[in-house]
């Protein structure tokens, strides 16, 4: 006997195809919504900000006069911040991932750590700001310094780096580790010579994406009390500084409309930085795609 009645199947085909078409259109609209809003945003920012983009914009400090305003302190501050955050967060992140994946025995305690690292990635950045203020700025007495901000930002992006590094380390095939151990290599030799070289593209990709998040973060800096207007650039890791998102935030708050255009110019710079970093990440990912 037949379970499929081909006649009724034929009768229902039209409505099935119609449903398919309608849903395709709905999903396309959903995609377009985000794209269009983004396009409008970009268009507005570029038209608003481009007239302020000039070489002087990069070489002048902030000013009361919109035409003279620049991002020298902010962009240098952001770059210094990244130069500190990158090694700190990558050392801590990769170290944690290697410990959890390669050394740690599986038990309740390490399971607890593993689960909570992913939870940590969902903690709002303001909370990290408060943490940084209490621990680094006040308790360790680092004050409103590059170092305090760098440690705070490192903590903020640490979960992302740990998770990305864990995945990268885990994707190195067990056969390669076995081959190394079977030749008498120690765990550390195996990690250094086999696991990390194979995992580095994944680790770098994740780390750069995490850093690009840190470069745009404002909330932790606000909570730490980082100034918005500085007429000097930092000369040590203990000096105070300002950063691009802080500077932009300050300009958008100003009553004069001209400053909103200056802010737009700042946003263009910040977004360009982000796009460059993301492109590097994508480039690394594509170039070193796993070959085993």
């Amino acid at each position, binding site marked *: 006997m037949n379970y499929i009645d081909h006649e009724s199947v034929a009768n229902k085909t039209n409505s099935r195809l119609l449903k398919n078409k309608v849903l395709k259109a709905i999903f396309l609209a959903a995609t377009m919504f985000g794209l269009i809003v983004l396009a409008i945003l970009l268009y507005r920012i570029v038209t608003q900000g481009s007239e302020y983009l000039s070489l002087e914009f990069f070489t002048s400090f902030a000013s009361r006069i919109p035409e003279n305003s620049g991002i020298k302190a902010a962009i240098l501050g952001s770059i210094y911040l990244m130069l500190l955050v990158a090694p700190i967060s990558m050392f801590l992140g990769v170290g944690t991932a290697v410990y959890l994946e390669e050394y740690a025995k599986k038990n309740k305690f390490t399971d607890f750590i593993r689960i909570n690292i992913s939870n940590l990635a969902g903690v709002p950045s303001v909370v990290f700001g408060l943490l940084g203020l209490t621990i680094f700025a006040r308790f360790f007495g680092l004050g409103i310094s590059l170092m305090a901000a760098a440690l705070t930002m490192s903590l903020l992006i640490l979960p992302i780096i740990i998770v990305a590094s864990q995945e990268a380390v885990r994707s190195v095939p067990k*056969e390669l580790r076995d*081959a190394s151990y*079977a*030749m008498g290599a*120690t765990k550390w030799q195996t990690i250094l010579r*086999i696991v990390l070289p194979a995992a580095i593209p994944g680790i770098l990709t994740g780390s750069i994406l995490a850093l690009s998040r840190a470069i745009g973060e404002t909330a932790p800096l606000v909570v730490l009390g980082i100034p918005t207007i500085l007429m000097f650039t930092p000369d040590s890791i203990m000096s105070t500084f300002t950063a691009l998102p802080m500077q932009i935030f300050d300009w958008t708050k100003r009553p004069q409309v001209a400053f909103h255009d200056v802010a737009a110019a700042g946003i263009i710079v910040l977004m360009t930085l982000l796009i460059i970093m993301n492109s590097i990440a994508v480039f690394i990912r594509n170039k070193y795609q796993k070959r085993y």
Partner: protein
Amino acid sequence: MTTTVKPKIQVPEKEKESASRGSVYQSNQLNLWYDTNHALKNIDLDIKENEVTAIIGPSGCGKSTYIKTLNRMTETIPSVKTSGEIIYRGKNILEKGYRVEELRTKVGMVFQKPNPFPKSIYENIAYGPRIHGIKNKKILDQIVEKSLRGAAIWDEVKDRLNENAYSLSGGQQQRICIARCLAIEPDVILMDEPTSALDPISTLKVEELVQELKKEYSIIIVTHNMQQAARISDKTAFFLNGEVIEFDQTDKIFSNPSDKRTEDYISGRFG
């Protein structure tokens, strides 16, 4: 009782002098569990030097598990528990304080699936010497050449030592793995179905290589291919459900096995 098994598998003529040979490995009452799965049961085996010892038996009978206990690679699996003794050159390697890194420089292993490192051919071979502290480029060069010659692959790769080992064929990769293992100048070579992923011609090359290598090394080889065991081994151990059913001269096992189960297995009645 006399058995009238017709030897279906031809065993080539081999010298029989194993009585005079020393032991490399003796396992005494060796047991191994994966959690509650009792994978090796009271294994007693005495493996002689400069011989090829084949381990045969149906899938899941513990062949790989046994060979991995010999260089303690089973330790990389957290659920494993062992009891009993494995005496390697007079010392119990399961004893606390026995340094597994030292053991593994004397006991090389070739795996079922060729597993070269994603590095150049040269770096693959130099890996072992490097981790054991050899930095001198001249010495490394010599080791690389000697090992590749030893694995009968020098002529095929001598002009492309800096190419990635992944660019080689599966059979070549497996011989690179054998060369990599020779580079640590081992005493014993463990091979876990080294030809199961290879085509017949590469298989033949590896088999010839094993014959060559046994002059200098003791070789323990797992195989599910009985013809292969008959062709290349001096002794054969038949495993079944985690037990050694029979362990004897290869020609004896294949022509006149003493256990009915061995006979059934080699005549293809199960497994």
